[in-house]
């Protein structure tokens, strides 16, 4: 060993640990460049800015018509513009959320009432409408709209949040899958467990919790029941594997089929929508501006990282996967560790199912179809070795995001869904290839 050994080794480790982060960042940069487009400011803030510009140009003594479409962001635009104009003391000649015809009617009405229209506060889209020129004294030159700017569609905050929101469920399930794969196992049942959790929770709420009028406590109890059932399914997987030595692939394949059938049977093949509104908050609500699933994901990843890197249990999981016999002969209780890992994986799949179910507002036995494949892909792209013993929790998070970002980018660029599958397959292959080459490159 010469003196340079630690340095190069450290550099190598740095690449191993953060290589995938670089890939993700590169993807973000490339997609941003590819989706660069002229954007119009939107929402409340844009409305306020437009109002301020009108005041600045024509003074506070103006009569303004606010025109926007009927989307939530445009409603916010109108709110913002009206509020700012009223604060400044201007007159609101009228406000519209709708189509060009709605705007024409509103303008006609205002003029018929004898109001004057000194300016039209319009959004980037409504300013393009041609109706203004039909009226004398208005014309499109009186329209004031937000100044457009150039920004990648991909990097817009709401797009990024929606990517994160969609990734969250896969990422949450992938935590358990990462642990399972680190023990040199696999869990094919997670997709079916998503459906099982969804159905179990919805039925529990409908039949025992009071359905649509269920209290918060009953709703949470129902969700917990769904997670517990999936945890038990995971425990069953683990028992088959440790007690009878059934290969994980087979044991969990069987569970995948059984859980799928069970959820369809429980739900009689239909979705269950007798759930309270509070149920929908879990997956559909936001906290501090972030979608709840994203927050849940962040918290779970922080906990899982800590468990895997700093606790005895985490150490044992790696040791069991790296060399179960050496672990056993070092005093590690191999079977209980394996059992725990499969149970956790089942419970996390259940949690993913609850979140997905809550997003949709129903319990659906058809949820989670093929999720296991996306989840395994995320783990593998994240650098966890299927041979066991190696892998990182945060690698999986990066892997899940790499897949989600590629999917999103392809959607934004109008790549067809068939082509998307081809690309995603290739991505998984390349990730494993890079990992394999990296492994062979090392000594021994």
């Amino acid at each position: 060993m010469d003196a340079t050994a630690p340095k190069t080794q450290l550099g190598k480790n740095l690449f191993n640990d953060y290589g995938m982060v670089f890939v993700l960042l590169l993807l973000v940069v490339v997609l941003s460049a590819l989706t660069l487009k002229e954007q119009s400011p939107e929402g409340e803030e844009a409305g306020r800015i437009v109002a301020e510009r009108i005041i600045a140009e024509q003074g506070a003594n103006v009569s303004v018509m606010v025109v926007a479409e009927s989307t939530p962001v445009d409603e916010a635009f109108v709110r913002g513009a009206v509020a700012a104009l009223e604060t400044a003391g201007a007159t609101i000649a009228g406000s519209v959320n709708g189509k060009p015809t709605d705007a024409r009617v509103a303008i006609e009405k205002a003029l018929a009432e004898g109001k004057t229209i000194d300016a039209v506060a319009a959004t980037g889209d409504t300013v393009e409408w041609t109706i203004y020129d039909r009226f004398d004294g208005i014309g499109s030159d009186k329209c004031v709209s937000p100044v457009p700017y150039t920004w990648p569609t991909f990097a817009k905050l709401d797009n990024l949040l929606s990517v994160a929101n969609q990734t969250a469920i896969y990422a949450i399930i992938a935590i358990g899958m990462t642990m399972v794969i680190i023990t040199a196992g696999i869990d094919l049942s997670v997709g079916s467990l998503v459906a099982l959790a969804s159905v179990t929770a919805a039925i529990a709420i409908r039949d025992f919790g009071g359905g649509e009028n269920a209290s918060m406590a009953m709703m949470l109890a129902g969700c917990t029941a769904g997670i517990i059932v999936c945890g038990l399914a995971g425990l069953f997987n683990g028992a088959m594997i440790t007690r009878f030595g059934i290969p994980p692939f087979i044991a969990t394949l069987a569970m995948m089929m059984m859980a799928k059938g069970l959820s369809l049977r429980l739900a009689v093949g239909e979705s269950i929508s007798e759930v309270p509104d509070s149920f929908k908050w879990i997956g559909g609500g936001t906290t501090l501006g972030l979608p709840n699933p994203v927050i849940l994901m962040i918290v779970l990843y922080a906990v899982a990282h800590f468990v895997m890197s700093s606790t005895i249990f985490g150490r044992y999981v790696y040791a069991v996967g790296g060399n179960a016999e050496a672990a056993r002969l070092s005093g590690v209780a191999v079977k209980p560790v394996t059992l725990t890992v499969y149970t956790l994986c089942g419970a996390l799949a259940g949690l993913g199912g609850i979140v997905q179910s809550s997003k949709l507002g129903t319990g659906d036995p058809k949820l989670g179809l093929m999720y296991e494949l996306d989840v395994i892909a995320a783990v593998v792209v994240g650098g966890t070795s299927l041979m066991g013993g190696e892998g990182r929790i945060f690698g999986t998070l990066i892997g899940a995001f790499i897949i989600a970002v590629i999917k999103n980018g392809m959607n934004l660029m109008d790549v067809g869904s068939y082509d998307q599958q081809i690309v995603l397959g290739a991505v998984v292959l390349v990730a494993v290839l890079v990992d394999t080459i990296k492994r062979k490159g090392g000594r021994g």
Partner: protein
Amino acid sequence: MANKQPNVPLLQMSGIEKSFPGVRALSGVSLKLHKGEVLALMGENGAGKSTLIKTLGGAHQPDAGTICIDGQPVKLSSPTAAIQAGIGVIYQEFNLIPALTAWENIFLGREKSGVFVARKEERRKAAELFRSLGVDIPLDVPCRQLSVAQQQLVEIAKALSQDVNILVMDEPSAALVPQEVEKLFAIIRDLQKRGIGIVYISHRLDEIFEIANTITVLRDGKYVGDAPATEMTRQKMIEMMVGRSIENEFPKQATQRGDVRLSVDGLSRGTSARNVSFDVRRGEVLGLTGLMGAGRTETARLIFGADKLEAGTISLDGKTLNIRSPQDAIKAGICLLTEDRKTQGLVLCRSVRENFGLPNLKELSTAGIVNKPKEREAFGRYVDSLSIRIPFQEQLAKNLSGGNQQKVVLAKWLQQNAEVLIFDEPTRGIDVGAKHEIYQLINQLAANGKAIIMISSELPEVIGMSDRILVMHEGRVTGEITDMSSVTQEQIMELAIG
């Protein structure tokens, strides 16, 4: 052989260079092998022997230097190319498929017929090969059921079945008992007569003087020197390998033996252990020896709880223990250093620090959370005291040489501060320098009042390091030797044969 050496060597390697990230494994190594010659390649672990033979086997490509066969430069770009060039390499790590039988492994990838394997033909040829080796290997059981030594013999048979001019053997005798080594030597001498050149690597110095014509010594990836075996002495060779002089190969120190610490009575499991009983005293090194499959390792595994006990009792300091798993044994203060470091001793894909921590995590953590600074500090102490050569604690266990790996395994058990230590082949595949350090450590542990069982097939080691010797045969204890002043290898062998 020296009488009819042709001018052109069979194999000539010159100026071989090979670097790995951060490590210069070989720098300017040269080697010459003639027809019918046995060349012993000597050096400590990490000296570059393994890298050199991997270069010969086509597993590594040298960064610089030339390899000539019969004077013609060759490029060994793959293991297949090496075999085609007439070079067969038997690596120390087995390359057998555990699920296939011996004969299937021997002919793997070289099956004769088109679609169907010529089973009878292959099986017959394999049987012939084993007969010519004078060994008895069950032909129709999967290799995973064969013992380490039997698997090694399959490896040798496999290499012999390929028509090679040059045969490289990396520690072929490591898993063999003296009788089998003699058989191996007979085979090697036979191959010599056929004009095959042999590169032989072994840490057993006695063997080298018995079989080698020429000795080439490497140290730290560099060529140190070579000499005909007749002109080399044991002392001189050790000095060349280690780079300093070692006074006494077996530095046994007399210790004060105290009360009985470990006592086993009537241990039984199938045919591998039948009614095994013995005691080990405080400060005593009990040598446990016998032929391959005599039940030594099996006995150790029973004491350690690695296998299920069918009958018998184990007691420590007079208290009967109920050991059902390695966890129970460790808790009671019994440790086992397994014979196979790579498959049983270490989690190769994890760092040495984590390997060290594995049995010690409970003591190194609070409320289930590992105290990493404490772990690093504890391991650091052993890195210093055992002089483990690692660039840093996060180094993966698989990147270490055999001696350093063994020291990591030692460190993890020393941290346990166990009362009974069972060493199963503690010096197998380990170089002279590290061997010496392990012997001194065993002395020190005995001096501290530990009870030690040392399982070994190397009779000089057993005789040199034990206070008392127990010999096993077919699962039974067949003899005990207490008078260490007059014991001979023949005496032990007689008991070992049964």
